[in-house]
């Protein structure tokens, strides 16, 4: 059974459609890489899924619950934004406790592996204002993974992280996938997309142009690397090709 079902999703800002006619289904235990040029609708798609943006038409169903006014479906979602900002005067420990309280998580029910792996345990008594951008990203990653979410939404997760921490984070993504999570990642790093993605969702002009496994894209163009294959594959698509229509 699909965990996320998107049907006829559209979002209009004024007269401008940021997203139109998007249909997609995402299953448990798969990593979906959402890619596309700037302004293609990736962020709007993810924000619709998170309930941050209200759809103009169509809808999304997450684990059988429609995305709408009832926020309970978000208990199963972990989100790591591209820009991690927290209340500056709280300590990291207070921030973690705040999220625990909001999620009604009892001790032992949360997953603290990433705290140790990313070295966040050494930052617990530090105030957020004393953390660098990279350290805040690590805290953000910990919060996203902490409550064993069914769905992980990661927006440019490795941006601002050192290579070692980025590697550990991507390992955590693969572990979450093995444990059955649906992982949705936006990324501009094609090596990351090729390494992690079970499927690539390509967005352009607010439309979902195609969803394919990265190896099929490479195969269709005769290229080994996705960064070389993708431009070729896009160039050979019919101009009006839209998946799901």
């Amino acid at each position, binding site marked *: 059974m699909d965990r996320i079902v998107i049907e006829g999703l559209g979002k209009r*800002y004024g007269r401008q459609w940021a997203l139109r006619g998007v249909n997609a289904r995402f299953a448990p235990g798969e990593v979906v890489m959402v890619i596309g040029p700037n302004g293609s609708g990736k962020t709007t798609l993810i*924000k619709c899924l*998170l*309930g*941050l*943006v*209200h759809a103009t038409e169509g809808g999304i169903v997450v684990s059988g619950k429609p995305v709408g*006014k009832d*926020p*309970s*479906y*978000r*208990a199963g*979602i972990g*989100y790591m*934004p591209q*820009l*991690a*900002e*927290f*209340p*500056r*005067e*709280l300590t990291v420990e*207070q*921030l973690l*406790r*705040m*999220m625990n*309280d*909001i*999620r009604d998580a009892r001790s032992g029910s949360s997953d603290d592996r990433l705290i140790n792996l990313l070295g966040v345990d050494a930052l617990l008594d530090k105030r957020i204002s004393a953390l660098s951008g990279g350290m805040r990203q690590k805290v953000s990653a910990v*919060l996203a993974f902490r409550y064993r979410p069914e769905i992980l939404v990661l927006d440019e997760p490795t941006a601002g992280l050192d290579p070692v921490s980025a590697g550990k984070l991507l390992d955590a993504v693969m572990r979450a996938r093995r444990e059955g999570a649906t992982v949705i990642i936006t990324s501009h790093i094609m090596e990351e997309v090729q390494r992690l993605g079970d499927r690539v969702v390509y967005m352009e002009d607010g439309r979902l142009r195609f969803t394919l496994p990265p190896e099929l894209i490479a195969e269709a163009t005769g290229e080994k690397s996705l960064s070389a294959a993708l431009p070729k594959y896009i160039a050979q698509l019919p101009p009006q090709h839209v998946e799901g229509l």
Partner: protein
Amino acid sequence: MWKVCKYTLIDLARNRFALGYALLLLVITVGLFMLEPDNTKALITLTQVVLALTPLLALVFTIIWYFNQYEFTVLLAVQPLPRAAITRAQYIAVSTALVLSFLLGVGLPLMAWAPGPVAFTLLLTGSALTLVFCALGLWIAVRQRDRARAVGIGLATWVTMMLLYDTLLLWIMFTFSDRPIEPLIIPLAALNPIDLSRILIMLRIDLAALLGYTGAVYQQFFGSGGGMLASAAALLLWALVPAALATRAFARKDL
């Protein structure tokens, strides 16, 4: 809601602006009482300072705070929380922090130099104005996407309530001075929370006598139990309506 409120308050308790605001009010109040031997005169000056400063700082602080917290607010909106609970928690936390700063900065010296009904009314109206302008600030901030524009609207709101509205009232009073318009002025004054607060404090200081017939009308209405209740209800509405509008706007907003 209370979980978000609790940690927001912990954050605000260490906020330099909130602490600086309390210190500024403390210095002004202590300075006024030390420089002015007549406590009534000091109270009148303090009233003018409180009526000008409290709304301005509550508005500007709430707007800037909202924009500084925006990314975290988005993260909260992704948690299994109703959006209304987030806005309510933020409103309660910000207004509580500023009311406490106000009570610390103005309340402590007032209790030392001029305890009594005037001081009590000044503290009550100052706190009410903080609640009102925090709610207005939050409403303005939620409805805007650009911080500078939101601050601009906030400042324009303050100038309107502090200066323009009074100018308009004065113009009406002078233009129609040959007619009995005082009863009309009462509801008009109640439409502006700053004017309403000013009248309530001035009546306690007993300066209404200096205002002639208008003062007598004010005294008759606002000095009565019913008038006090109506004033309190008006100030409460001034806080609750913008707070409710901010909650509704945030619930409908695309983040």
